């Protein structure tokens, strides 16, 4: 899954969709995930990176990541 090319993000977690004018703020971990999505990193690799850098149960991460991706999809921020 990829973030749409025109979505603007900042390292601090601000997201701007120039097509809709919508903007969002995400927490630091989500900001990191967004940066990786922008680089085209596969979800599996993103999971690995988070597990390496943070103390989190894999199942919990799986669930949270799925929730986050669904939110991005709902917000129309992901490529079809």
């Amino acid at each position, binding site marked *: 899954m990829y973030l749409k090319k025109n979505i*603007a993000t900042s390292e601090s977690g601000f997201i701007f969709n120039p097509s*809709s*004018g919508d903007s969002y703020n995400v927490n630091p971990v989500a900001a990191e995930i967004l940066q990786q999505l922008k680089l085209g990193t596969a979800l599996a690799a993103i999971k690995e990176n988070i597990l390496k850098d943070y103390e989190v149960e894999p199942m919990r991460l799986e669930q949270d990541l799925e929730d986050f991706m669904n939110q991005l999809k709902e917000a129309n921020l992901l490529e079809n």
Partner: protein
Amino acid sequence: MEKSDNLITIAVTGLNAIDSPGPGIAVIRALRDGLAKPLRIIGLSYETLEPGIYMHDVVDKTYQVPYPAAGSDALLRRLQYIHEKENLQLIIPNFDAELHNFIKLGPVLQSMGIATFLPTQEQFDVRDKINLFRFGQQHGLTVPKDKIINSIAELNSCEETLGFPLVVKGKFYDAIVAYTMEQAQKAFYKLSAKWGFPIIVQEFIDGTEINIAVLGDGNGNAVSIIPMRKLYITDKGKAWAGITLEDDKLVKVARDFVNATNWKGGCELEIMRTKKDDLYIMEINPRFPAWIYLTAAAGQNQPAALAKMAIGEAAPVFTGYEVGKIFIRYSWDHITDIKEFHQVSGMGEL
């Protein structure tokens, strides 16, 4: 005042601010920003409490002009007087209700040396609210269903064809969303008393409000297209804050409109974007909107571009604009005094 050969004198209407600002001050601000020549701005006002009359750093001199209902002859006589004093080179009218008169006077104003840059009467009429649905169908543009009515009895049948909620609209301005027949009737009486007939009853479309400022060159080309999403909407439905957008679909709708009409001058497309991403054209306003300065801020100064084309310069070539540029409107109490008010109300100029 010493006149320079380079001086350009432009008359502008729409200096009002009650209940929401007219486009005039924003147009003047864009002209002053974007025209690299000495500029003299002449305000044309209808009422004595239009703030632009008293803003002497924005408007150099103001003359009252007759209301549109007085007709084009009365307007011409007044413009002849003003032209004698000021040597106008261009007039930019900014009210729907006055455009018919200015369009009609276009050729005679031209003969006096005063340019306008306006659509033809035919172009003006084709996007009129009462013709909009038909126009949309003819040109493949999505427009909400509507009914044009002249009596309260006709309103009753709207429930069957359009359902509730529906939108009751005045001939020139104002739109009221009605959720019941009672509300629709109240809106009908209110708007017909204010603006006359016909009344337009339109299908209610749920979605995000987006407006597009467009400048057409009269030859089917859109010189500039700037879409804006309303970030804050007043209880009158006006944008009090907005942000520029980047969206090919929105640009295409605007381009298709200009292409279909050969639109000449400024205009504003009021769009509703549904959750299914359909773009409905709700209204087409035949002049610059009050938020027009945002186009200058974003890098495509539409009023300045119009002025350049009107005085015979080539249309500017815009290659891009800043997305995410925001306007946030505020209110400022301008201070003047009874001496100035007396001058305007008594003498009709300041």
